């Protein structure tokens, strides 16, 4: 391994007061990503009833909606050209408009269109939020900030569960009331928008562009250039291998619990709320641990924990064991979000960071988002599936995830305690086989 020579880095110190404000603004992006995704999952039957559509039509409308996250890639990559700040602000505006419009949908197709738009902006908002955290927070606090950001993602899901428990869907507005809550980010943005600054690293890069030291236009395939390709393929594959079983299991657990283990609907709700509570803690612990022991060991611990507890969850018939297994599966499985976000951003230079993160999130990870639930549904279908059992199908996919642990342990660069410039200095050394 080549020796890493760390050049003295520029001072990117940003005052703590501003970082706190930045975090407050960004957590709303993370919160509404979790919130919005959960509304659709939990209120789909209500929406179906409202528009009087069949199961088949409902299934078809999910395709354009989820495609929004894929299209978000094209918006997110603009952050490397236009800047993080304008993209974040416009994403909040776009998301809010489309979410409010969703509440006014007049049929299932208008609903699908507005949700498609909302997903585009929400996907971009979240991705830019993670990039801003990575660029603005010092190395020693980056993990914690990412952990805090993602904790609010889980809180979004919990709040939907609590609002459902409180019966918001039974009010005069029905499910539409949930979407009107999506107006809150805009209310937050109005007073704070002038205090939100462009990241220092992007400002510096813009200066370099003005001086002609960097190209203004970032090509679509820039992250695939030889000097970045290995990290892109590595991080992308790890994201995809994680996302297939994770999204497959989260999408199907409630169905599995009810149909294969005899849980009542109330038990399912209680288990989910408690598990996501523990999941919030998982994000936080992951953020702290990656600063203390490093990204790579933290990822290995969380991967192994996620696999073990998920398999236990989908194999045990004991409800008490299932309760703890669900909690820890969420703690480790979803809780490893901060370390995955750091892999997707820290390993790429500022001029392509947004775009590289978009490739990883909107291509590799979204593949898992689409195929994970589909694979479980097709193979585990009780009537026609080859496996015919949701629990066994999820377990099968969890076992196929094991190679991701090997990839992280064997090939993933460690970036603990390194400022972004130090990481890039290491990466630009002559290539050495790992």
């Amino acid at each position: 391994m080549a020796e890493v020579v760390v050049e003295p880095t520029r001072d990117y110190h940003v005052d703590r007061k501003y970082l706190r404000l930045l975090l407050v603004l960004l957590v709303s992006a993370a919160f509404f990503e979790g919130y919005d995704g959960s509304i659709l999952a939990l209120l789909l039957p209500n929406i179906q009833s409202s528009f009087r559509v069949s199961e088949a039509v409902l299934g078809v409308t999910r395709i354009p909606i989820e495609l929004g996250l894929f299209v978000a890639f094209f918006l997110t990559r603009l952050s490397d050209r236009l800047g993080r700040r304008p993209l974040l602000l416009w994403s909040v505006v776009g998301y809010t408009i489309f979410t409010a419009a969703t509440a006014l949908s007049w049929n299932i197709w208008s609903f699908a269109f507005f949700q498609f738009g909302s997903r585009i902006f929400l996907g971009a908002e979240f991705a830019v939020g993670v990039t801003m955290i990575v660029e603005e927070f010092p190395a020693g606090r980056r993990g914690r900030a990412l952990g805090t950001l993602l904790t609010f993602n889980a809180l979004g899901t919990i709040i939907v569960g609590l609002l459902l428990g409180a019966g918001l869907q039974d009010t005069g507005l029905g499910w539409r009331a949930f979407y009107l809550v999506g107006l809150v980010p805009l209310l937050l943005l109005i007073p704070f928008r002038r205090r939100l600054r462009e990241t220092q690293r992007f400002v510096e890069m813009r200066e370099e562009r003005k001086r002609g030291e960097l190209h203004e236009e970032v090509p679509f395939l820039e992250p695939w250039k030889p000097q970045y390709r290995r990290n892109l393929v590595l991080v992308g594959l790890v994201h995809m291998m994680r996302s297939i079983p994770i999204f497959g299991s989260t999408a199907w657990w409630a169905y599995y619990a009810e149909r294969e283990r005899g849980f009542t609907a109330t038990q399912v709700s209680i288990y989910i709320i408690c598990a996501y509570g523990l999941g919030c803690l998982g994000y936080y612990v992951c953020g702290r641990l990656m600063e203390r022991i490093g990204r790579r060991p933290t990822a290995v611990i969380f991967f192994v924990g996620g696999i073990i507890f998920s398999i236990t969850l989908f194999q045990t018939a004991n409800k008490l064991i299932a309760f703890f297994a669900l909690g820890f599966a969420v703690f480790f499985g979803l809780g490893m979000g901060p370390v995955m976000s750091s892999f997707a951003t820290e390993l790429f230079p500022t001029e392509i960071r947004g775009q590289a993160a978009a490739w990883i999130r909107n291509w590799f990870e979204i593949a898992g988002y689409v195929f994970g639930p589909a694979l479980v549904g097709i193979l585990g279908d009780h009537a026609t599936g080859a496996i015919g059992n949701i629990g066994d199908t999820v377990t099968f996919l969890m076992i196929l995830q094991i190679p991701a642990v090997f990839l992280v342990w064997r090939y993933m660069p460690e970036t603990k305690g390194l400022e972004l410039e130090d990481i890039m200095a290491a990466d630009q050394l002559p290539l050495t086989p790992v």
Partner: protein
Amino acid sequence: MSNHSFAKGIVACIALMMVLAGTLFLLNHGHSRPEGVAENWLTAIGDTTRKGVEADATKRADKIGAPELAVPILEPHPELIKRKSGFDDLEVGKAARVDPASPDKVRVGFRVHARRPQDQTAEINGVLTLERTNDKWMVTALDVTDPASAGLPALPSDGGPPPSSAPASLWLGALVGAVIVGAITTALVKSAGGAVTAEPAAV
């Protein structure tokens, strides 16, 4: 990466997806489990009281068995259960042959928590009879009775076996699959060449 290489990559991904879809189709082909059919029928029956989807649900149920069979378990006045789904949750057990010599007629135990007026639910245990004609299972009878006393396997929540489970060979297949996935992904990472990894920081 050039645009040409990218296009080739996209074509390779599409080809891989088509192979995967074909494999899934082949793997699923020929499976028809009465437990799953019974569950689908009960799900559709539950939806027949749900606002906005009554017609679609009745059509779905009718393809598997006459909706009238569900009269003993379903709330007759949907407006009294706020036109929600007729069942809060449902569960089916493992099928058992009615006549050990005939594989085309089985019984499947079930339990539903049926919605009742004033936000109440009633636990109902029952047995569905299914018959297979032309490789298609149809629900032909419904009896409100305890599955265990009818000689059927206990329901999963009572400690009974799941309606279906993976064969032991699947677990061996999963381990072999993990090794193959590991080999492919490692080869992909190695072939990508590129950036050197940083040493762990001495912090």
